């Protein structure tokens, strides 16, 4: 399997389940990676290919729902599919509300599982690609100087160059120069483009500006 083959993580303490899933996943041309406990899984390094997690609810030590609580926020690129030997409604609701792709009870239909896995992997791919884009933007933004960032912020807020100059206490010409640099470094095609980029960066902008 190549590096770009999507990975399916499986965490289940029962060996029958692990082995059979491993076999099934491999048969589908995906890359299985099985673990017997939540801790073993957490110790495994993160991956950058589309991936998803097939997770049993009842595990020794940290149980599946708690694991979901831990990783769901961080790993938006790893959607979770729950499998369980016995499920109750509250458990299901909790899992789904926390963003699980699917909640299946054993023994489950393999088609249903594989469909869920495919959905999850697609979500993962999208998330990864979004993340990649964001990273590019971040890198570009990081390459801006302090002054260039200030100019960018004011420009995307709708101020004319002259006004920007007034705000920052620099001449219009200087503003224009900085603006050009910003457009270049951010690789924005137009002001509108730059505005969209800024919007995407905004939640993080505060953090970056502080840095």
């Amino acid at each position, binding site marked *: 399997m190549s590096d770009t083959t999507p990975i399916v993580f499986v965490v289940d*303490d*029962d*060996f*029958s*389940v692990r*082995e*059979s*899933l491993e*076999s*099934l996943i491999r*048969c*589908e041309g995906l890359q299985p990676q099985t673990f*017997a406990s939540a801790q073993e899984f957490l110790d495994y390094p993160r991956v950058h290919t589309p991936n998803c997690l097939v997770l049993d609810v*009842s595990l*020794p030590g940290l149980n599946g729902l708690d694991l979901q609580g831990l990783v769901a926020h961080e790993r938006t690129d790893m959607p979770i599919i729950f*499998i369980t*030997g*016995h499920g109750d409604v509250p458990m299901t609701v909790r899992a789904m509300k926390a963003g699980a792709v699917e909640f299946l*009870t*054993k*023994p*489950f*239909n*393999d*088609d249903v*599982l594989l469909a869920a896995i495919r959905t999850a992997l697609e979500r993962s791919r999208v998330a990864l690609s979004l993340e990649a884009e964001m990273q590019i933007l971040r890198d570009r933004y990081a390459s801006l100087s302090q002054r260039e960032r200030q100019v960018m912020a004011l420009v995307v807020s709708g101020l004319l160059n002259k006004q920007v100059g007034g705000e920052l206490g620099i001449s219009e010409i200087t503003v224009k120069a900085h603006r050009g640099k910003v457009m270049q470094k951010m690789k924005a095609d137009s002001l509108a483009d730059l505005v969209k980029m800024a919007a995407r960066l905004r939640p993080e902008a505060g953090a970056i500006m502080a840095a």
Partner: protein
Amino acid sequence: MKKTTAPISLAGELDQQVAQQTAELAAANAELKKQLAERRLVEEKLQQEERELKRSEVRKAAIVDSALDCIVTIDHEGSITEFNPAAERTFGYRRDEVLGRPLANVIVPLSLREKHRQGFARYLATGEARVLGKRIEMTAVRADGSEFPVELAITRIPLEGPPSFTGYLRDITERKRAEHELRRSEAFLAEAQHLSRIGSFSWRVATDEITCSEQLYRIFQIDRDAQVTFELIGTRIHPEDLSVFQEHIERSRRDRSDVQLEFRLQMPDGAVKYVHVAAHFRGDHGRREYFGAVQDVTERRLSEEALSKARSDLARVARVTSLGVLTASIAHEVNQPLSGIVTNASTCLRMLATDPPNVDGARETARRTIRDGNRASEVITRLRALYGKKSPTAQSMDLNEAAREVIALSLSELQKNRVTLRPELAPDLPLVTGDRVQLQQVILNLLRNASDAMSTIEDRPRDLLIRTEPDDTDPNNHDRVRLSVSDVGIGFEPQATSKLFEAFYTTKNEGMGIGLSVSRSIIERHYGRLWATPNNGPGVTFSFSIPCNPEGLTSDATHASRIPSASDAA
């Protein structure tokens, strides 16, 4: 007398006159003598009467003086005219101190004097007597001022002239006290009967006369005024218990055996009461009687029944609850291999559907399917052994022999896992009483666990030691036997020790957590214990120790007795 015819001389007339007078004198004399005699008679009679009177007086005085009761006589003014020695003693006065004094002032307490005076005055005025001829009780006062209760009877002395009265008084302090005590005692008894819901009775066999205490009426809900007969009692007895009751009555009529009987009553309103009757025969003076008591034990019975019901409800709920938990656990345990089966089979189909078909892969999935199927069935088998309807049987058995059988059965599997088995079975191991099959299951479980624990060990020989020995660590000095299984495997974390025996907990890749939990239950029901200790070197030793002859288990060659199964305990 000869008549003379001649005129006699004067002297002759004189003679005649003298003679006549003499005759008259003589007659008068005789008359006098007669009167004298009569008078003497009368006098004698009088004297006799006087003597009689005196004797009568003496007799009367004797009676009055020695009377136990106080005898006091008073005149029409109410003044004391007689005061007998008993009265002297009772009231503390000498006779001469009180004669002539008003009775009221002497013996009637100050607070009652006015009433007494009024009553006396009313009688004198109206002739209306409220107290004459009747026994009355009143309070009197002694010379020392102390008041005490007396019983009094007053009569009028039947003589002509102004009225006079005799009063007979008796100090009834003692009697009053005894009466009071008796009343208290009766009240006490009645209260006790009421509190304990016991009614007492007596039954005179010859006449079927039944006497009952207050409480008995209450228990049977019979009117106080009603006459208690067997017929009436019969109407209160629960129809189902009536014949038993009657049998007992008949038996008691014939012989003198004590009665001890419990039966039900049914009240007119339908309410049911439980009663316990105990009676004892007494045959003194030819009177054949039973004396007994009836106790209403309804409340106790009802609470016993409620308790019993609550217990069985609780047991049922516990059974259901644990069954619910068990069911969930079973479902969970079984779903694991089932999931494997289904997934493997599906994968198998996929593999066969590829072009070209992946036959090797398919074969592998089929093999795994079979393995998982067996695994699922093992779960069921083990559970059935523990919770099944079949009662375990206790026999006297040789643990070494049982162990050898298990070893023989698992030898091939152990060898396949490259496990070297080293048996150290003590010779002359005492026999134990237990269920052979169950104990063998435990041994098998331990062997398998040990083998599994070493499945990843590559750097040392996979030695599995199974040892039996007598165990003399029993605090009560009973004979015990211990079996240990030691491996050199990966061991377990200290924190996991308590979890190890939890049903369905497993740390292993192979095998099931349920094994140890079930094994422990089996050993505990043999009155033994199962535990695990890490070895000094690598690996773990699991041991169980069971008594040879547990109390509560009896071994009989012909009649195997029951070890309580889990379904009993639930």
